[in-house]
Protein backbone atom coordinates (compact mmCIF):
# COMPACT_ATOMS: atom_id res chain seq x y z
CA UNK A 1 0.00 0.00 0.00
CA UNK A 2 1.11 3.52 -0.76
CA UNK A 3 0.36 7.04 0.36
CA UNK A 4 0.30 9.69 -2.36
CA UNK A 5 0.81 13.28 -1.25
CA UNK A 6 0.10 15.94 -3.81
CA UNK A 7 0.60 19.69 -3.45
CA UNK A 8 -1.56 21.47 -6.00
CA UNK A 9 -3.05 24.83 -6.93
CA UNK A 10 -6.22 25.45 -4.85
CA UNK A 11 -8.10 26.31 -8.03
CA UNK A 12 -7.54 22.77 -9.37
CA UNK A 13 -9.08 20.96 -6.42
CA UNK A 14 -12.64 20.52 -7.69
CA UNK A 15 -11.43 19.26 -11.07
CA UNK A 16 -9.08 16.78 -9.40
CA UNK A 17 -11.80 15.50 -7.07
CA UNK A 18 -14.00 14.77 -10.08
CA UNK A 19 -11.12 13.06 -11.93
CA UNK A 20 -10.39 10.84 -8.91
CA UNK A 21 -14.06 9.99 -8.55
CA UNK A 22 -13.97 8.80 -12.21
CA UNK A 23 -11.39 6.13 -11.34
CA UNK A 24 -13.17 5.13 -8.13
CA UNK A 25 -11.02 7.01 -5.64
CA UNK A 26 -13.17 8.64 -2.97
CA UNK A 27 -11.08 8.80 0.19
CA UNK A 28 -8.89 11.88 0.40
CA UNK A 29 -7.61 14.06 3.23
CA UNK A 30 -6.60 17.60 2.46
CA UNK A 31 -4.96 20.58 4.12
CA UNK A 32 -4.85 24.23 3.23
CA UNK A 33 -1.14 24.99 3.31
CA UNK A 34 1.30 27.70 2.33
CA UNK A 35 4.63 27.05 0.75
CA UNK A 36 7.27 28.23 -1.63
CA UNK A 37 9.24 26.70 -4.43
CA UNK A 38 10.04 27.91 -7.93
CA UNK A 39 7.21 30.45 -8.05
CA UNK A 40 8.60 34.00 -7.85
CA UNK A 41 7.70 36.56 -5.18
CA UNK A 42 4.52 38.56 -5.43
CA UNK A 43 4.52 42.22 -4.47
CA UNK A 44 1.79 43.84 -2.40
CA UNK A 45 1.53 47.52 -1.56
CA UNK A 46 -0.11 49.05 1.51
CA UNK A 47 -0.07 52.85 1.41
CA UNK A 48 2.92 52.59 -0.89
CA UNK A 49 4.93 50.34 1.43
CA UNK A 50 6.06 47.23 -0.42
CA UNK A 51 5.53 43.77 1.02
CA UNK A 52 6.99 40.82 -0.79
CA UNK A 53 4.89 37.69 -0.51
CA UNK A 54 6.87 34.47 -1.06
CA UNK A 55 4.56 31.93 0.59
CA UNK A 56 1.65 31.01 -1.62
CA UNK A 57 -1.55 29.22 -0.65
CA UNK A 58 -1.69 25.63 -1.87
CA UNK A 59 -3.78 22.56 -1.19
CA UNK A 60 -2.02 19.45 0.01
CA UNK A 61 -3.93 16.20 -0.31
CA UNK A 62 -3.25 12.68 0.84
CA UNK A 63 -4.58 9.52 -0.76
CA UNK A 64 -3.80 6.03 0.53
CA UNK A 65 -4.26 3.29 -2.10
CA UNK A 66 -3.25 -0.19 -3.34
CA UNK A 67 0.13 -0.34 -5.08
CA UNK A 68 -1.47 -1.05 -8.46
CA UNK A 69 -3.61 2.15 -8.32
CA UNK A 70 -0.65 4.49 -7.87
CA UNK A 71 0.11 5.14 -11.55
CA UNK A 72 -3.54 5.66 -12.37
CA UNK A 73 -3.96 8.25 -9.64
CA UNK A 74 -0.74 10.04 -10.56
CA UNK A 75 -1.85 10.31 -14.16
CA UNK A 76 -5.20 11.80 -13.09
CA UNK A 77 -3.36 14.40 -10.96
CA UNK A 78 -0.99 15.25 -13.80
CA UNK A 79 -3.89 15.47 -16.24
CA UNK A 80 -5.95 17.87 -14.15
CA UNK A 81 -3.38 19.92 -12.22
CA UNK A 82 -0.76 20.74 -14.84
CA UNK A 83 -0.75 24.25 -16.27
CA UNK A 84 2.92 24.03 -17.26
CA UNK A 85 3.84 27.11 -15.20
CA UNK A 86 5.92 27.41 -12.04
CA UNK A 87 3.77 26.79 -8.97
CA UNK A 88 1.84 23.73 -10.20
CA UNK A 89 3.09 21.74 -7.18
CA UNK A 90 4.59 18.28 -6.59
CA UNK A 91 3.62 14.65 -5.97
CA UNK A 92 5.27 12.39 -3.38
CA UNK A 93 4.72 8.63 -2.98
CA UNK A 94 5.47 6.79 0.30
CA UNK A 95 5.11 3.19 1.43
CA UNK A 96 2.45 2.65 4.13
CA UNK A 97 3.07 0.13 6.93
CA UNK A 98 -0.38 -0.35 8.49
CA UNK A 99 -3.93 0.82 7.99
CA UNK A 100 -6.72 0.40 10.55
CA UNK A 101 -10.31 1.58 10.12
CA UNK A 102 -11.34 2.96 13.50
CA UNK A 103 -15.07 2.20 13.25
CA UNK A 104 -14.74 -1.50 12.40
CA UNK A 105 -11.14 -2.33 13.31
CA UNK A 106 -10.65 -3.73 9.78
CA UNK A 107 -6.99 -3.74 8.76
CA UNK A 108 -4.93 -3.58 5.58
CA UNK A 109 -6.66 -3.63 2.18
CA UNK A 110 -10.07 -4.07 3.79
CA UNK A 111 -9.61 -0.75 5.58
CA UNK A 112 -9.14 1.21 2.36
Amino acid at each position, binding site marked *: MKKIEAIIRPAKLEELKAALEEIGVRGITLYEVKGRGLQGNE*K*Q*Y*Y*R*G*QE*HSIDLFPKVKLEIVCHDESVENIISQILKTCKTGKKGDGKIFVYPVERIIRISTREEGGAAL
Partner: protein
Amino acid sequence: MKIKFKGITLISTLAILVLGLPVIAAAADAPVIDTGDTAFMIICAALVMIMTPGLALFYGGMVRRKNVLGTIMQSFTAMALVSVQWVLIGYTLGFGADIHHLIGGLDFLGMQGVTGNPFPAYAATFPHSVFVFFQLMFAIITVALISGAFAERMRFPVFVVFVLLWTTLVYDPLAHWVWGVDGWLRNLGALDFAGGTVVHISSGVSGLVACLVLRGRRQIGVEPMVPHNLPMTMLGAGLLWFGWFGFNAGSALGASGLAGAAFLVTNTCCAAGAISWAAAEWLHHGKPTALGLASGMVAGLVAITPAAGFVSTGSAILMGIIVGPLCYFAVSKMKAKLGYDDSLDAFGIHGVGGIFGALATGVLANTAVNPAGVNGLLFGNPYQLLVQLIAVVATIAFASTLTFLILKVISLFAPLRVSEEEEETGLDISQHGEDAYYYGEMSSMQI
Protein backbone atom coordinates in the same frame (compact mmCIF):
# COMPACT_ATOMS: atom_id res chain seq x y z
CA MET B 1 -51.05 84.22 58.63
CA LYS B 2 -47.32 83.98 59.00
CA ILE B 3 -47.44 80.21 58.45
CA LYS B 4 -49.49 80.67 55.31
CA PHE B 5 -47.00 83.19 53.94
CA LYS B 6 -44.16 80.78 54.64
CA GLY B 7 -46.08 78.07 52.78
CA ILE B 8 -46.46 80.20 49.68
CA THR B 9 -42.77 81.08 49.71
CA LEU B 10 -41.87 77.42 50.03
CA ILE B 11 -44.15 76.37 47.17
CA SER B 12 -42.89 79.07 44.87
CA THR B 13 -39.26 78.25 45.73
CA LEU B 14 -39.92 74.61 44.95
CA ALA B 15 -41.62 75.54 41.71
CA ILE B 16 -38.60 77.52 40.62
CA LEU B 17 -36.29 74.67 41.55
CA VAL B 18 -38.35 72.05 39.72
CA LEU B 19 -39.23 74.06 36.65
CA GLY B 20 -35.79 75.62 36.56
CA LEU B 21 -34.47 78.75 35.04
CA PRO B 22 -36.18 78.48 31.65
CA VAL B 23 -39.40 79.74 33.30
CA ILE B 24 -37.65 82.93 34.22
CA ALA B 25 -35.74 83.21 30.97
CA ALA B 26 -38.88 82.77 28.90
CA ALA B 27 -40.42 85.71 30.65
CA ALA B 28 -37.54 87.90 29.48
CA ASP B 29 -37.08 88.75 25.80
CA ALA B 30 -35.37 85.45 24.93
CA PRO B 31 -34.09 84.57 21.44
CA VAL B 32 -36.49 82.26 19.66
CA ILE B 33 -35.73 78.66 18.77
CA ASP B 34 -35.89 77.87 15.06
CA THR B 35 -37.24 74.33 14.82
CA GLY B 36 -35.62 73.74 11.42
CA ASP B 37 -32.17 74.74 12.68
CA THR B 38 -32.66 72.71 15.84
CA ALA B 39 -33.65 69.55 13.97
CA PHE B 40 -30.77 70.04 11.54
CA MET B 41 -28.18 70.54 14.28
CA ILE B 42 -29.33 67.51 16.28
CA ILE B 43 -29.06 65.35 13.17
CA CYS B 44 -25.65 66.80 12.27
CA ALA B 45 -24.35 66.15 15.78
CA ALA B 46 -25.53 62.55 15.55
CA LEU B 47 -23.83 62.25 12.15
CA VAL B 48 -20.54 63.44 13.63
CA MET B 49 -20.93 60.89 16.41
CA ILE B 50 -20.89 57.98 13.93
CA MET B 51 -17.48 59.12 12.68
CA THR B 52 -15.72 57.81 15.78
CA PRO B 53 -17.03 54.23 15.51
CA GLY B 54 -16.20 54.65 11.80
CA LEU B 55 -12.67 55.62 12.74
CA ALA B 56 -12.49 52.62 15.07
CA LEU B 57 -13.26 50.31 12.12
CA PHE B 58 -11.02 52.28 9.74
CA TYR B 59 -8.10 51.86 12.14
CA GLY B 60 -9.17 48.41 13.39
CA GLY B 61 -8.94 46.86 9.94
CA MET B 62 -5.46 48.26 9.40
CA VAL B 63 -3.80 46.69 12.43
CA ARG B 64 -2.81 43.05 12.82
CA ARG B 65 -5.55 40.72 14.07
CA LYS B 66 -4.05 40.48 17.57
CA ASN B 67 -4.50 44.25 18.08
CA VAL B 68 -7.92 44.86 16.55
CA LEU B 69 -9.89 45.09 19.81
CA GLY B 70 -7.21 47.19 21.49
CA THR B 71 -7.37 49.62 18.58
CA ILE B 72 -11.17 49.76 18.43
CA MET B 73 -11.27 50.13 22.23
CA GLN B 74 -9.18 53.31 22.03
CA SER B 75 -11.74 55.12 19.87
CA PHE B 76 -14.69 53.89 21.93
CA THR B 77 -12.91 54.75 25.17
CA ALA B 78 -12.39 58.28 23.87
CA MET B 79 -16.17 58.49 23.30
CA ALA B 80 -16.87 57.49 26.88
CA LEU B 81 -14.18 59.56 28.61
CA VAL B 82 -14.49 62.79 26.65
CA SER B 83 -18.31 62.72 26.89
CA VAL B 84 -18.06 63.03 30.67
CA GLN B 85 -15.02 65.34 30.68
CA TRP B 86 -16.81 67.70 28.27
CA VAL B 87 -19.93 68.30 30.33
CA LEU B 88 -17.89 68.69 33.52
CA ILE B 89 -15.09 71.00 32.35
CA GLY B 90 -14.17 70.66 28.67
CA TYR B 91 -16.99 72.71 27.20
CA THR B 92 -16.52 75.62 29.55
CA LEU B 93 -12.76 75.74 28.89
CA GLY B 94 -13.51 75.94 25.19
CA PHE B 95 -16.60 78.12 25.12
CA GLY B 96 -16.91 79.84 28.50
CA ALA B 97 -16.38 83.63 28.73
CA ASP B 98 -12.96 84.50 27.33
CA ILE B 99 -9.93 84.87 29.59
CA HIS B 100 -7.01 86.72 27.96
CA HIS B 101 -7.97 85.36 24.51
CA LEU B 102 -6.48 82.01 25.55
CA ILE B 103 -9.13 79.95 27.32
CA GLY B 104 -12.76 79.94 28.35
CA GLY B 105 -13.80 80.70 31.92
CA LEU B 106 -15.67 78.38 34.25
CA ASP B 107 -19.15 79.85 33.64
CA PHE B 108 -20.48 76.53 32.29
CA LEU B 109 -18.67 74.27 34.76
CA GLY B 110 -20.69 71.08 35.14
CA MET B 111 -23.23 72.45 32.62
CA GLN B 112 -24.47 75.14 34.98
CA GLY B 113 -26.21 77.81 32.95
CA VAL B 114 -26.54 75.62 29.88
CA THR B 115 -30.23 75.42 28.99
CA GLY B 116 -32.51 74.41 26.20
CA ASN B 117 -32.70 78.04 25.13
CA PRO B 118 -30.64 79.56 22.34
CA PHE B 119 -27.32 81.09 23.32
CA PRO B 120 -26.68 84.09 21.05
CA ALA B 121 -22.86 83.88 21.08
CA TYR B 122 -22.77 80.39 19.53
CA ALA B 123 -26.25 79.01 19.01
CA ALA B 124 -28.50 81.91 18.11
CA THR B 125 -31.39 79.84 16.81
CA PHE B 126 -31.14 76.44 18.48
CA PRO B 127 -30.71 75.16 22.05
CA HIS B 128 -27.41 75.82 23.79
CA SER B 129 -27.45 72.16 24.89
CA VAL B 130 -27.42 71.05 21.23
CA PHE B 131 -24.36 73.23 20.59
CA VAL B 132 -22.65 71.63 23.58
CA PHE B 133 -23.38 68.18 22.16
CA PHE B 134 -22.33 69.11 18.61
CA GLN B 135 -18.98 70.43 19.84
CA LEU B 136 -18.49 67.37 22.06
CA MET B 137 -18.52 65.11 19.03
CA PHE B 138 -15.57 67.09 17.60
CA ALA B 139 -13.63 66.81 20.84
CA ILE B 140 -14.12 63.03 20.87
CA ILE B 141 -12.95 62.32 17.35
CA THR B 142 -9.91 64.58 17.65
CA VAL B 143 -8.29 62.65 20.46
CA ALA B 144 -9.36 59.34 18.89
CA LEU B 145 -7.56 60.32 15.66
CA ILE B 146 -4.23 60.50 17.49
CA SER B 147 -4.47 56.81 18.43
CA GLY B 148 -3.56 55.83 14.86
CA ALA B 149 -0.02 57.10 15.36
CA PHE B 150 0.83 54.91 18.34
CA ALA B 151 -1.34 51.93 17.40
CA GLU B 152 -0.32 48.44 18.52
CA ARG B 153 1.91 49.50 21.43
CA MET B 154 0.48 51.89 24.07
CA ARG B 155 -0.58 50.52 27.47
CA PHE B 156 -4.29 50.97 28.05
CA PRO B 157 -4.07 52.74 31.45
CA VAL B 158 -1.65 55.22 29.89
CA PHE B 159 -4.09 55.79 27.04
CA VAL B 160 -6.87 56.64 29.50
CA VAL B 161 -4.74 59.25 31.29
CA PHE B 162 -3.43 60.59 27.97
CA VAL B 163 -6.94 61.11 26.60
CA LEU B 164 -8.08 63.05 29.67
CA LEU B 165 -4.98 65.24 29.85
CA TRP B 166 -4.73 65.86 26.11
CA THR B 167 -8.38 66.78 25.58
CA THR B 168 -8.29 69.13 28.59
CA LEU B 169 -4.89 70.74 28.04
CA VAL B 170 -4.65 70.76 24.24
CA TYR B 171 -8.06 70.43 22.60
CA ASP B 172 -10.10 72.68 24.89
CA PRO B 173 -7.75 75.71 24.69
CA LEU B 174 -7.29 75.25 20.93
CA ALA B 175 -11.05 75.14 20.39
CA HIS B 176 -11.23 78.42 22.31
CA TRP B 177 -8.46 80.06 20.27
CA VAL B 178 -10.15 79.30 16.97
CA TRP B 179 -13.89 79.21 17.72
CA GLY B 180 -14.37 80.88 21.09
CA VAL B 181 -15.66 84.46 21.12
CA ASP B 182 -12.52 86.60 21.61
CA GLY B 183 -10.17 83.64 21.07
CA TRP B 184 -6.93 85.05 19.67
CA LEU B 185 -6.89 83.13 16.38
CA ARG B 186 -10.54 83.99 15.79
CA ASN B 187 -9.78 87.65 16.47
CA LEU B 188 -6.84 87.45 14.07
CA GLY B 189 -9.28 86.36 11.37
CA ALA B 190 -8.05 82.79 10.86
CA LEU B 191 -10.51 80.80 8.78
CA ASP B 192 -11.31 77.31 10.03
CA PHE B 193 -14.81 76.35 9.02
CA ALA B 194 -15.10 72.92 10.65
CA GLY B 195 -11.84 72.22 12.42
CA GLY B 196 -8.87 71.85 10.09
CA THR B 197 -6.49 73.29 12.67
CA VAL B 198 -8.35 72.39 15.86
CA VAL B 199 -9.12 68.81 14.86
CA HIS B 200 -6.77 67.64 12.12
CA ILE B 201 -3.53 69.56 12.49
CA SER B 202 -3.63 69.23 16.27
CA SER B 203 -4.30 65.47 16.22
CA GLY B 204 -1.86 64.86 13.37
CA VAL B 205 1.15 66.61 14.90
CA SER B 206 0.32 65.24 18.35
CA GLY B 207 0.35 61.80 16.76
CA LEU B 208 3.75 62.46 15.25
CA VAL B 209 5.16 63.57 18.61
CA ALA B 210 3.55 60.59 20.38
CA CYS B 211 4.98 58.03 17.96
CA LEU B 212 8.42 59.63 18.30
CA VAL B 213 8.24 59.60 22.11
CA LEU B 214 6.94 56.01 22.24
CA ARG B 215 9.27 54.88 19.41
CA GLY B 216 8.32 52.34 16.79
CA ARG B 217 6.85 48.88 17.16
CA ARG B 218 9.59 46.41 18.09
CA GLN B 219 9.26 44.17 15.05
CA ILE B 220 9.01 46.96 12.49
CA GLY B 221 11.02 46.07 9.41
CA VAL B 222 11.43 42.49 10.64
CA GLU B 223 7.93 41.14 10.32
CA PRO B 224 5.30 42.39 7.89
CA MET B 225 2.82 44.78 9.50
CA VAL B 226 -0.03 44.56 7.04
CA PRO B 227 -3.74 45.29 7.51
CA HIS B 228 -5.66 42.25 8.75
CA ASN B 229 -9.13 43.18 7.48
CA LEU B 230 -9.41 45.76 4.72
CA PRO B 231 -13.19 45.34 4.23
CA MET B 232 -13.48 46.54 7.86
CA THR B 233 -11.33 49.54 6.96
CA MET B 234 -13.50 50.28 3.91
CA LEU B 235 -16.66 50.15 6.02
CA GLY B 236 -15.05 52.54 8.50
CA ALA B 237 -14.05 54.89 5.68
CA GLY B 238 -17.64 54.84 4.42
CA LEU B 239 -18.93 55.82 7.86
CA LEU B 240 -16.35 58.61 8.06
CA TRP B 241 -17.48 59.98 4.69
CA PHE B 242 -21.13 59.83 5.79
CA GLY B 243 -20.53 61.36 9.20
CA TRP B 244 -18.37 64.13 7.75
CA PHE B 245 -21.50 65.64 6.15
CA GLY B 246 -22.65 66.49 9.67
CA PHE B 247 -19.17 67.66 10.61
CA ASN B 248 -18.89 70.20 7.79
CA ALA B 249 -22.47 71.10 6.89
CA GLY B 250 -23.35 71.29 10.60
CA SER B 251 -20.54 73.78 11.12
CA ALA B 252 -22.75 76.32 9.34
CA LEU B 253 -24.69 76.17 12.65
CA GLY B 254 -28.05 76.29 10.93
CA ALA B 255 -30.11 74.78 8.10
CA SER B 256 -28.93 77.41 5.66
CA GLY B 257 -27.60 77.94 2.17
CA LEU B 258 -24.14 77.96 3.69
CA ALA B 259 -24.75 74.47 5.07
CA GLY B 260 -25.76 73.37 1.57
CA ALA B 261 -22.57 74.84 0.08
CA ALA B 262 -20.41 73.14 2.71
CA PHE B 263 -22.24 69.85 2.13
CA LEU B 264 -21.56 69.86 -1.59
CA VAL B 265 -17.86 70.81 -1.45
CA THR B 266 -17.29 68.18 1.27
CA ASN B 267 -18.50 65.40 -0.99
CA THR B 268 -16.65 66.82 -3.98
CA CYS B 269 -13.26 67.14 -2.32
CA CYS B 270 -13.58 63.68 -0.76
CA ALA B 271 -14.26 62.15 -4.16
CA ALA B 272 -11.44 64.07 -5.86
CA GLY B 273 -9.04 62.98 -3.09
CA ALA B 274 -10.02 59.33 -3.57
CA ILE B 275 -9.45 59.58 -7.32
CA SER B 276 -6.13 61.40 -7.06
CA TRP B 277 -4.63 59.07 -4.40
CA ALA B 278 -5.69 55.95 -6.30
CA ALA B 279 -4.34 57.43 -9.53
CA ALA B 280 -1.01 58.31 -7.94
CA GLU B 281 -0.69 54.75 -6.67
CA TRP B 282 -1.76 53.29 -9.99
CA LEU B 283 0.96 55.24 -11.79
CA HIS B 284 3.56 54.45 -9.12
CA HIS B 285 3.02 50.72 -8.59
CA GLY B 286 0.72 49.65 -11.40
CA LYS B 287 -2.34 48.92 -9.27
CA PRO B 288 -4.94 51.07 -7.51
CA THR B 289 -5.61 49.67 -4.01
CA ALA B 290 -8.74 49.67 -1.87
CA LEU B 291 -6.75 51.06 1.06
CA GLY B 292 -5.44 53.80 -1.22
CA LEU B 293 -8.94 54.77 -2.35
CA ALA B 294 -10.15 54.90 1.27
CA SER B 295 -7.07 56.85 2.37
CA GLY B 296 -7.58 59.36 -0.44
CA MET B 297 -11.20 59.83 0.62
CA VAL B 298 -10.13 60.67 4.15
CA ALA B 299 -7.34 62.97 2.91
CA GLY B 300 -9.90 64.81 0.76
CA LEU B 301 -12.26 65.18 3.71
CA VAL B 302 -9.45 66.45 5.93
CA ALA B 303 -8.38 69.03 3.34
CA ILE B 304 -11.85 70.47 2.81
CA THR B 305 -12.67 70.67 6.53
CA PRO B 306 -11.25 74.18 7.15
CA ALA B 307 -12.32 75.34 3.68
CA ALA B 308 -15.90 74.07 3.45
CA GLY B 309 -18.17 77.09 3.59
CA PHE B 310 -15.47 79.39 2.16
CA VAL B 311 -14.50 77.87 -1.20
CA SER B 312 -16.22 77.09 -4.48
CA THR B 313 -16.90 73.59 -5.84
CA GLY B 314 -14.14 74.03 -8.42
CA SER B 315 -11.69 74.85 -5.65
CA ALA B 316 -12.81 71.70 -3.83
CA ILE B 317 -11.90 69.59 -6.87
CA LEU B 318 -8.50 71.30 -7.07
CA MET B 319 -7.84 70.70 -3.37
CA GLY B 320 -8.81 67.03 -3.70
CA ILE B 321 -6.54 66.56 -6.71
CA ILE B 322 -3.56 67.97 -4.81
CA VAL B 323 -4.12 66.42 -1.37
CA GLY B 324 -4.26 62.79 -2.57
CA PRO B 325 -0.75 62.59 -4.08
CA LEU B 326 0.58 64.88 -1.33
CA CYS B 327 -0.54 62.56 1.50
CA TYR B 328 0.43 59.50 -0.55
CA PHE B 329 3.94 60.93 -0.80
CA ALA B 330 3.94 61.64 2.95
CA VAL B 331 3.00 58.09 3.95
CA SER B 332 4.92 56.17 1.30
CA LYS B 333 8.14 58.19 0.94
CA MET B 334 8.54 60.77 3.70
CA LYS B 335 7.69 58.37 6.52
CA ALA B 336 10.14 55.72 5.27
CA LYS B 337 12.84 58.33 4.70
CA LEU B 338 12.54 59.91 8.16
CA GLY B 339 11.97 56.55 9.84
CA TYR B 340 9.20 57.31 12.36
CA ASP B 341 6.57 54.65 12.99
CA ASP B 342 3.27 56.51 12.57
CA SER B 343 1.49 53.14 12.44
CA LEU B 344 -1.75 54.15 10.75
CA ASP B 345 -0.62 57.51 9.36
CA ALA B 346 -2.44 59.89 11.69
CA PHE B 347 0.22 62.49 10.88
CA GLY B 348 0.62 61.53 7.22
CA ILE B 349 -3.06 62.09 6.50
CA HIS B 350 -4.52 64.35 9.21
CA GLY B 351 -1.39 66.41 9.89
CA VAL B 352 -0.20 66.82 6.30
CA GLY B 353 -3.72 67.01 4.83
CA GLY B 354 -4.81 69.43 7.57
CA ILE B 355 -1.87 71.78 7.03
CA PHE B 356 -2.50 71.74 3.29
CA GLY B 357 -6.21 72.41 3.81
CA ALA B 358 -5.63 75.33 6.18
CA LEU B 359 -3.16 76.99 3.80
CA ALA B 360 -5.29 76.26 0.72
CA THR B 361 -8.18 77.99 2.51
CA GLY B 362 -5.99 81.10 2.68
CA VAL B 363 -5.52 80.89 -1.07
CA LEU B 364 -8.95 79.83 -2.33
CA ALA B 365 -11.42 81.46 0.13
CA ASN B 366 -13.95 83.49 -1.78
CA THR B 367 -16.54 85.90 -0.41
CA ALA B 368 -18.76 85.09 -3.37
CA VAL B 369 -19.34 81.73 -1.64
CA ASN B 370 -19.75 83.15 1.85
CA PRO B 371 -20.09 86.91 2.34
CA ALA B 372 -19.35 86.42 6.05
CA GLY B 373 -15.92 84.98 5.17
CA VAL B 374 -12.94 86.73 3.60
CA ASN B 375 -11.09 86.47 0.31
CA GLY B 376 -7.90 84.46 -0.03
CA LEU B 377 -4.71 85.09 -1.98
CA LEU B 378 -6.25 84.18 -5.31
CA PHE B 379 -9.03 86.72 -4.80
CA GLY B 380 -6.76 89.62 -3.98
CA ASN B 381 -6.06 89.15 -0.27
CA PRO B 382 -2.57 87.69 0.27
CA TYR B 383 -2.77 88.72 3.94
CA GLN B 384 -5.20 85.84 4.57
CA LEU B 385 -2.54 83.27 3.68
CA LEU B 386 -0.26 84.82 6.31
CA VAL B 387 -3.05 84.60 8.90
CA GLN B 388 -3.61 80.94 8.00
CA LEU B 389 0.13 80.30 8.31
CA ILE B 390 0.18 81.87 11.78
CA ALA B 391 -2.74 79.64 12.82
CA VAL B 392 -0.98 76.55 11.45
CA VAL B 393 2.35 77.34 13.14
CA ALA B 394 0.68 78.22 16.45
CA THR B 395 -1.34 74.99 16.41
CA ILE B 396 1.72 72.87 15.59
CA ALA B 397 3.85 74.55 18.26
CA PHE B 398 1.20 74.35 20.96
CA ALA B 399 -0.06 70.81 20.28
CA SER B 400 3.38 69.26 19.83
CA THR B 401 4.90 70.89 22.93
CA LEU B 402 1.98 69.96 25.17
CA THR B 403 1.78 66.40 23.81
CA PHE B 404 5.49 65.96 24.49
CA LEU B 405 5.12 67.27 28.05
CA ILE B 406 2.01 65.18 28.77
CA LEU B 407 3.72 61.97 27.68
CA LYS B 408 6.93 62.80 29.55
CA VAL B 409 5.00 63.49 32.75
CA ILE B 410 2.98 60.26 32.43
CA SER B 411 6.21 58.33 31.81
CA LEU B 412 7.48 59.48 35.22
CA PHE B 413 4.74 57.39 36.80
CA ALA B 414 4.30 54.45 34.44
CA PRO B 415 5.83 52.94 31.32
CA LEU B 416 4.03 54.17 28.20
CA ARG B 417 4.51 51.03 26.18
CA VAL B 418 3.51 47.43 26.58
CA SER B 419 6.34 44.98 27.32
CA GLU B 420 8.02 43.06 24.54
CA GLU B 421 6.08 39.95 25.46
CA GLU B 422 2.76 41.84 25.57
CA GLU B 423 3.49 43.41 22.21
CA GLU B 424 4.15 39.97 20.76
CA THR B 425 0.89 38.63 22.23
CA GLY B 426 -1.03 41.68 21.06
CA LEU B 427 -3.10 44.32 22.82
CA ASP B 428 -6.33 42.32 22.69
CA ILE B 429 -5.15 39.63 25.06
CA SER B 430 -2.47 41.55 26.98
CA GLN B 431 -4.54 44.70 27.68
CA HIS B 432 -8.12 43.45 27.59
CA GLY B 433 -8.03 39.67 28.08
CA GLU B 434 -10.10 39.09 24.96
CA ASP B 435 -9.58 37.48 21.59
CA ALA B 436 -11.34 39.20 18.68
CA TYR B 437 -11.59 36.10 16.54
CA TYR B 438 -11.91 33.07 18.79
CA TYR B 439 -13.16 30.09 16.81
CA GLY B 440 -12.16 27.34 19.25
CA GLU B 441 -8.71 26.00 19.94
CA MET B 442 -8.28 24.91 16.32
CA SER B 443 -9.73 27.51 14.05
CA SER B 444 -10.52 25.09 11.22
CA MET B 445 -12.61 22.83 13.45
CA GLN B 446 -16.37 23.29 13.37
CA ILE B 447 -16.93 23.10 17.11
